[in-house]
């Protein structure tokens, strides 16, 4: 399945084996030898440990191809859980995922808005306790809490020690990250990138970002700014972006730009049912409304989205060219509602140039686009608790290290 495992700098050999089992879904001990490069006695020993800890279970046998049939191993999905929280202006989304990074519970609550951080921390802790209780999972099986942080518009959070405060309030280990990176890790954990060694999750919520996964590791850049897709310039003389630059794709064609254009077009606003004035909904709600109208075939809504999609596709082409990406997954709440409109247009932007012998890029929709951030937040915990990497390798990432030759495991 994934040739990345052998080249990933895991903190321990046990972490490497667990990661190989996760990546494969189901795999035999012989498959693990091929995937990790460890000896048979080492694999046998580590698998026994993982089974004793309850993290891995034996699950029937593989199809026989002559010789004896091999026992298959897989993650014991219900062995551990992780909480993921996406903190946003408008909405706080909570999920509880199992060991496979699949949501078993989800709830969305009113967002932080202008509320002061200490109050929000107390509320988050109480709501997490209720979520765990509602699923009936023993607290001891919950590995920790992943939190995806608010956008730059939430000034009151600057300087607030959110991680430590949440750790104190919840008594859970806390891991923090940004939305696009978390979404990319969630996609990677759930197998959405397949065996690609260079992949990106394009995250579209009310803004646009990209999370990169290179050789199975999220790449954030030395200052956490890698993958700022929303600020790729698609029009040198374009409108001023909130970041100060001109013509950023987010300013030209992001969800907020789409919604602004939709609200300004009175007949469109009437046709799709956008509410104006004091009744006006959030960007996310109005973007979803326009998207549903486009999917029903409303021509003006469709034209608006297709135009946005062309710019998003243009920016994506830039990212693909720079990073030599093999897989791009569209995810986040805006792609959850509008992905079927964007996907063909983005594909066209990436594949529509037969004269250039560029390798093909696989562009897909995420299977969990609507809840990608919160699920990704939970997988931050799964990764850091179960398959940690060697210290010092997290930032700035392994780009400067020589890639190890990839071996394809039998599993």
């Amino acid at each position, binding site marked *: 399945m994934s040739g990345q495992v052998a080249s990933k700098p895991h903190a321990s050999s046990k972490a490497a084996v667990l990661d190989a089992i996760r990546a494969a879904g189901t795999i035999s001990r012989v498959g693990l030898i091929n995937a990790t490069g460890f000896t048979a006695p080492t694999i046998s020993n580590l698998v026994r440990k993982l089974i004793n800890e309850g993290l891995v279970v034996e699950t029937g046998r593989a199809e026989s191809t002559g010789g004896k049939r091999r026992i298959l191993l897989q993650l014991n*999905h219900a062995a551990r859980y992780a909480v993921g929280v996406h903190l946003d202006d408008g909405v706080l989304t909570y999920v509880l995922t*199992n060991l*496979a990074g*699949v*949501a*078993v*519970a*989800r*709830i*969305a*609550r*009113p967002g932080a808005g202008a509320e002061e951080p200490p109050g929000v921390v107390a509320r988050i802790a109480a709501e997490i306790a*209720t*979520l765990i*209780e*509602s*699923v*009936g999972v023993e607290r001891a099986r919950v590995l920790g809490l992943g939190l995806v942080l608010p956008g730059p518009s939430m000034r009151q959070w600057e300087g607030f020690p959110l991680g430590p405060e949440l750790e104190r309030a919840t008594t859970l280990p806390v891991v923090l990250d940004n939305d696009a990176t978390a979404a990319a890790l969630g996609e990677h954990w*759930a197998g959405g990138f397949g065996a690609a060694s260079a992949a990106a999750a394009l995250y579209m919520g009310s803004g646009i970002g990209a999370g990169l996964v290179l050789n199975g590791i999220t790449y954030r850049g030395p200052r956490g700014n890698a993958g700022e897709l929303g600020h790729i310039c698609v029009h040198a003389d374009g409108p001023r972006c909130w970041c100060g630059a001109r013509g950023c794709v987010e300013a030209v064609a992001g969800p907020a730009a789409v919604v602004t254009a939709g609200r300004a077009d009175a007949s469109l606003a009437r046709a799709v049912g956008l509410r104006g004035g004091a009744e006006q909904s959030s960007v996310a*709600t109005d973007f*979803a409304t326009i998207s*549903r109208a486009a*999917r*029903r*075939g409303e021509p003006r809504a469709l034209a608006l989205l297709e135009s946005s999609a062309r710019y998003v596709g243009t920016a994506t082409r830039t990212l693909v060219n720079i990073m030599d990406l093999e897989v791009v997954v569209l995810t986040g709440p805006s792609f*959850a*509602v509008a*992905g*079927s409109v964007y*996907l*063909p247009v983005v594909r066209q932007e990436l594949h529509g140039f037969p004269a250039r012998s560029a390798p093909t890029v696989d562009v897909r*929709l*995420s*299977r*969990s686009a*609507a*809840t990608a951030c919160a699920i990704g937040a939970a997988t931050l915990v799964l990764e850091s608790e179960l398959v940690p990497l060697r210290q010092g390798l997290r930032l700035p990432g392994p780009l400067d290290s020589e890639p190890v030759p990839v071996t394809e495991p039998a599993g």
Partner: protein
Amino acid sequence: MGATSAVGLVLARPPRLLGAEPFFMEFIAGIEERLAEHGRSVLLHIVANHSAEIAAYRRWAQQQLVDAVVLVNPTVDDTRPAILGELGLPVVVAGEAAAGTPAVRRDDVGSVRAALAHLLDLGHRRIARVSGPETLRHTRTRTAALLKAVRSAGVTAELVAGDYSEESGAKLTTVLLGRPEPPSAIIYDNDLMALAGLNAAKELGLEIPRDLSLIAWDDSSLCRLASPPLTTMSLDVHLFGDLVAESVLRLIEGQPVAQRWCATESVVARGTTAAPGPQHRTHLT
């Protein structure tokens, strides 16, 4: 306002299927949007089986974690409304329910007729359907409606039951197409099975829609993005969720809740339905 401001919804199915089901996320978004206006949320819980679903209701009632429950996928001889009643949890059924239980119904009969009429208009006479599980009430309602409609149209229909998964869609399509007199058109009860059926038919060397017409249920991104794009029965799923939320809100406020209906689903004709090919016309009299 109630004690928790949460409304519970349990999906009993393997979690791996959830992300693959845009229908449910859209439905939940519809409920959520309306509830949020009243400071309420949807607590979604995905469990593997029926007994885990009942255990969740008991836990929620005991610990007062939800103010009401939205019950999905009502089954024949469904025991859940009675159990929820004993637990004191108000319930709104998304689908068919016994008289007196608040429900938001889909017009399954009218929608099946619309799907069949689309195929009959194109000239199809050998029709098959890959249904969802036969334990579900709406599966049986659609089956009865289809059998009645084909009888009065004087055509035949072959019915096989799947489980909504891609695997069952592919397998049953291959079975149907392997029969001595294969159907010229297949109706599927969801999007995933139709998509898998489309791929299975293409792998068998059939050209779609020349050699086989397909209609999916539950229009989703998957249907639009299929190649060719799938003709589907389209329900406004978001509005369905919205109607359910309205009933829930009335119920929590202690007001009487009438049974409500979604609009009849319409055919969205895309690239997988056409007149039957010459090999099927030879079967006509």
